[in-house]
């Protein structure tokens, strides 16, 4: 950063006399990379100070220095800086993707062991510590039902709430709603679980349940809704604000009523972004463990009815299997984790495709 306001160069740079400049040959970068790697390996192993990770780190640094030096000598300073920054940006990208790739690799390699029909077709009912089989069928059903119900509750509520804030809300009331949505964003999931436990499971549901507290998948869905709502509202709000005012005015000028303009012009324009926000919320909810444990209770058997009795979920299944004292349970936990990630991925891709199809080019 420059610390003075006086320009470094008093005169503008001299006009170039030719537009062509000397360039490093195309093979220069790979050659430097290989040389850097060899040199780094020699240095690190020669001195005996580390393993492959250090080799890569040293190699990257050497590569950056070598590339900058070579480009500086042949192409000049501006070009060398350009190459240095491009290389840094690419390294940053690799660094960011590395954990993701590692997670996916771990999941696939460790989760493949139990990718069998048993896993997707049976529950953990009557499976003891010595049994190698058993599956997550009940947990998959739980996740689908709980997240499905939570989505059915959250999407209409959240989208309508965002429409109110953006299109109709004026003054204190809209401000208060926005404020509380912001506050909700920060609520830890265990707290929403406790809230639903106290409010729904212990106080409201005994009314329909012969006075007994009603742990159920629906209660878990309620807790997940509380978690999803702020994400859906905020992302929808942002997307609606991005719809240009001239579009709304174009519709108004045709004599289209405001609600219809919102429904037929504004929402379709913002749809892909809204869908992305909803998918983020779903992905987050599908991975929640604590609220499900608190209000749905888990359970080893298949229970299709989300309104009665305990239900499990994939995240909860992972948590329970990971802590189980059985040599077979870690494999189940890995496969369940893989299933969960795959489920969210498939849902996201499907939703994106749907939202895109809804645009044009049919």
């Amino acid at each position, binding site marked *: 950063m420059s610390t003075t306001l006086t320009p470094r160069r008093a005169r503008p740079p001299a006009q170039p006399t030719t537009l062509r400049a000397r360039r490093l040959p195309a093979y220069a970068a790979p050659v430097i990379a290989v040389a850097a790697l060899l040199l780094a390996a020699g240095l690190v192993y020669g001195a005996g100070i580390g393993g492959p990770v250090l080799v890569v780190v040293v190699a990257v640094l050497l590569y950056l220095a070598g590339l900058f030096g070579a480009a500086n000598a042949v192409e000049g300073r501006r070009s060398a800086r350009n190459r240095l920054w491009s290389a840094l940006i690419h390294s940053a990208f690799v660094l960011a993707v590395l954990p993701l790739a590692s997670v996916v690799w771990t999941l696939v390699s460790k989760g493949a062991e139990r990718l069998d029909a048993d896993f997707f077709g049976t529950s953990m009912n009557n499976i003891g510590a010595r049994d190698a089989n058993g599956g997550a069928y009940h947990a998959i059903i739980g996740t689908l039902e709980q997240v499905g119900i939570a989505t059915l509750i959250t999407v209409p509520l959240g989208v309508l709430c965002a429409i109110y804030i953006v299109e109709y809300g*004026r003054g204190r009331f809209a401000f208060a709603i926005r404020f509380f949505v912001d506050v909700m964003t920060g609520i830890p999931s265990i707290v929403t679980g406790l809230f639903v436990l106290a409010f729904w499971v212990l106080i409201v549901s005994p009314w329909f349940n012969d006075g007994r507290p009603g742990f159920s998948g629906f209660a878990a869905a309620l807790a997940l809704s509380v978690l999803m709502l702020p994400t859906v509202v905020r992302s929808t709000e942002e997307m609606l604000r991005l719809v*240009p005012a*001239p*579009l*709304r*005015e*174009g*519709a*108004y*000028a*045709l*004599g*289209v*009523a405001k609600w*219809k*303009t919102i429904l*037929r*012009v504004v929402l*379709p*324009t913002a*749809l892909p972004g809204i869908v992305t926000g909803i998918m983020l919320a779903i992905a987050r909810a599908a991975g929640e463990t604590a609220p499900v444990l608190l209000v749905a209770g888990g359970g080893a058997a298949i229970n299709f009815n989300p309104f009665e009795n305990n239900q499990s979920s994939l995240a909860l299944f992972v948590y329970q299997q990971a802590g189980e004292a059985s040599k077979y349970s870690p494999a189940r936990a890995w496969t369940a984790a893989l299933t969960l990630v795959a489920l969210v991925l498939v849902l996201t891709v499907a939703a994106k495709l749907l939202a895109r199809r*809804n*645009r*044009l*080019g*049919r």
Partner: protein
Amino acid sequence: MAKRVEAANVTAYYGGFKAIENINLTVEPKTVTALIGPSGCGKSTFLRSINRMHEVLPGARVEGNLTIDGQDVYDRDVDVTAVRRMIGMVFQRPNPFPTMSIFENVVAGLKLNGVRRKSILEEAAEKALRSANLWDEVKDRLAKPGAGLSGGQQQRLCIARTIAVEPQVVLMDEPCSALDPISTLAIEDLMFQLKDKFTIIIVTHNMQQAARVSDRTAFFSIEKTGDPGRLIEYDNTQKIFSNPSQKKTEDYITGRFG
């Protein structure tokens, strides 16, 4: 079915800021009226107060009397959507609906107001596109997105969309300012044709255009920045451009000011 527009003492505000003051002007049916004047003098504001688009902005309001064939546009019992269907508007920048095809764009006004019959929509679309001189260019790609057209085509699409609902007055706010000369000529031709059916009010920065297309011209101006815009002179276009009665008008059209 073209209608007379009468403004009496129209004053418009943006919050506390008075943008135009005491505008009095009568636009006869089946004429083209041009609004000219330096930027910021309130031409758009006046235009938008005619079809009640001004009030869409928060804090914006209009005082005075605006009638269309004697009916008060700002009467308490008036339905704004009816006003806007009767008084169509074309904006400075083409604004086709990005999620709709060319066909859907043209019939958007009809469809969103409840017309369902496919035959009616198709007929209306062809008629509007023909009037807007766009039919031949788009007839084979009606299902393609409206946003894929060139700027001039998009603007004609927006004009087609506006006239498809068969308004009686068409307001145009600098409709050619973003267009090339050929598209501009096409739109000027269009105005000549539309004049048979509609009353047209157009804002333009282009003197030649005002002189070419309009029957009457209104010159707006402001004293200095921050003052409200006023109507300085309103007369036959020929008179305004050959022998204006106000010194300010003469200065403006001869390029000595503005």
